[in-house]
């Protein structure tokens, strides 16, 4: 049932040269991720979790191994094709700097649809209903500079899932938030996962985030040391 596998990594390695010392961020990671899963990748800083997320998102390329996202092998794609893949199949939520400062919340949510070429009427309608379902309609006309960190992250999530991506990648989504706001945000993610079936892959070292995920993958020194799904299986 390959169609149920959204992400598949085979023997993925990635080495950085940091001040002429090679850093093995990933060492032959094998990893599969099914549609509708909510997975958190955990591990201390330097364990390679961000790198794993980045190579899956096509922001970084592995030195060895293959990555397949929704049946497309990333290795053969050029920069433009990778851009298009991210545009159409993935949603991103970053630690900070998620939003375009010169656009309002509504415009930010519309933005990716605009890139995709969705018509203005449909765009506005979908963006508004997305803000509505996330209870942030009142932020529609505000610019990122006038919002709190939690509000910005909500708008970022709205933007990333409004196009119904195959996969939502969230790198330390709670890094700049207090714990109450983090709980809110995670409840939102869980709801999206359960109600809309959004596949979520998050990298974090925040135990609150881990506790919300169905499956936890522990990474240490660039290798998977524990996978809760494997245990269940």
């Amino acid at each position, binding site marked *: 049932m390959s169609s149920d596998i959204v992400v598949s990594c085979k023997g993925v390695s990635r080495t950085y040269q940091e001040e002429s010392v090679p850093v093995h961020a990933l060492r032959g990671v094998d990893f599969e991720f099914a549609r509708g899963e909510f997975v958190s990748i955990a591990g201390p800083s330097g364990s390679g979790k961000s790198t794993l997320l*980045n190579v899956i*998102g096509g*922001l*970084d390329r592995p030195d060895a191994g293959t990555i397949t996202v929704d049946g497309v092998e990333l290795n053969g794609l050029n*920069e*433009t094709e990778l*851009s*298009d*893949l*991210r*545009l*159409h199949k*993935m*949603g*991103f939520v*970053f630690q900070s*700097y*998620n939003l*375009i*400062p*010169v*656009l309002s919340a509504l415009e930010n949510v519309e*933005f*990716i649809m*605009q*890139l995709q*070429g969705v018509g203005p009427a449909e765009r506005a309608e979908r963006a508004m209903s997305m803000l509505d379902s996330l209870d942030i309609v009142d932020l529609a006309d505000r610019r990122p500079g006038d919002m709190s960190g939690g509000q910005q992250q909500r708008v970022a999530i709205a*933007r*990333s899932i409004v196009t119904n991506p195959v996969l939502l990648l969230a790198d330390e989504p709670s890094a700049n938030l207090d714990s109450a706001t983090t709980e809110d945000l995670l409840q939102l993610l869980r709801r999206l996962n359960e109600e809309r079936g959004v596949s979520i892959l998050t990298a974090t070292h925040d135990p609150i985030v881990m506790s919300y995920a169905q499956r936890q993958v522990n990474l240490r020194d660039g290798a998977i040391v524990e996978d809760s799904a494997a245990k269940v299986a």
Partner: protein
Amino acid sequence: MPLKLLLQLSTRNILRHKRRNGLLLAAIIVAVGAVTVSNSLIRGMQYDMADAAVSNLTGHVKILAEGYRDDPNIDKNFVLAENWQPDVAAEELVGWAARVRVPAVIMSERGTRGIQFVGIDPDQEDISFIGQAAYDGERLTDGSDGRVVIGRALAEQLETTVGRRLVIITQGADGLNREAGFRIAGLYDTDGTSLEKIFVFTGVNTLQKMVGADVFTELSIRLVREPFLFQFKTSMIEFFTGLEVLDWRELEPQAAAMFVFADAAIFIWFFIMMGALIFGLVNTLITSVMERVRELGMLRAVGMRPKSVIVQVVLESSILMFIGVACGLIAGWLFILWLGEGIDLSRFAEGMDAFGMRTTMRPIPLAGDMLLVAGLSLLFGVLASLYPAWRVVKIKPLEALRR
């Protein structure tokens, strides 16, 4: 990638730093405005020089007997049919004048000078400087006027004035010298003194009688439009077979060379001003791009193509340039209006005269020049943005996000 979206992003990013971009705009406006004004002055000078050359008894086209240029003598002459009219539409023609011009010696009680003695029909001479000059005393009345008009500078050299008599010696058609006395009807005054010292005028019939032949030595024709020149000249060459048909560029090569140089000067000015502008423009663009690196990295991460990022930076530069060019053209144009009739440079009269220029610098704004400046400036804006755009594209989205 929808251009409209990129336009919106670029516009808002420009508005984000109003003071910075305002200053940059001011610099662009100064540059474009200065180029516009200087272009109009260069054009004014260019046209004036051409005009002065054409007015200098030359006309756009001049017909001479074969050999007259090498040996300007009364035996190099031609006969013009009675009631001759150039074969040209009236709206293309300012006028024409048939003259007799011979070298001569002029003498007053106090001095002797070599001059060009020109017989004219005053009614025809609105095409040349002598028809437009200011006078002390009287003008010549018609082609059979037996008096002379001389330049003010020559009158000073000869220590003579209106009403006094002069003796002029020239060679007749038979090759023998003729000597005749003339009364001075008036003194003419031109911008410089070089013409005033050389040309002495009398009625054409008077001079024909003096040299003893009913002939002309030159026919000058002035047109309304310079571009019509070539076509007209060709038709004249067919009509006047056996005579030399020359245009002003051939007759006044110095003025023609300056005319060509003025075209180049317009580009030189443009590149100097844009050269001064480019450092500030590139600095502003780079800064505005570099402080947005994370934002641009995020845009790349969510799927904006590298090309679109370049387009966004180029658009930002182009929009700034576009507004700056528009305002600069308007500012330049207003300044030209304020200059009005021109800048008085009579302080430099002799220097200007020596190089064939007039003492008033008159601005002539040409739509073509403005379009050229606008087009080149926009192109320049695009070129200036390529380096910052290339800088930002070179940064991988991942690095950008890490910053």
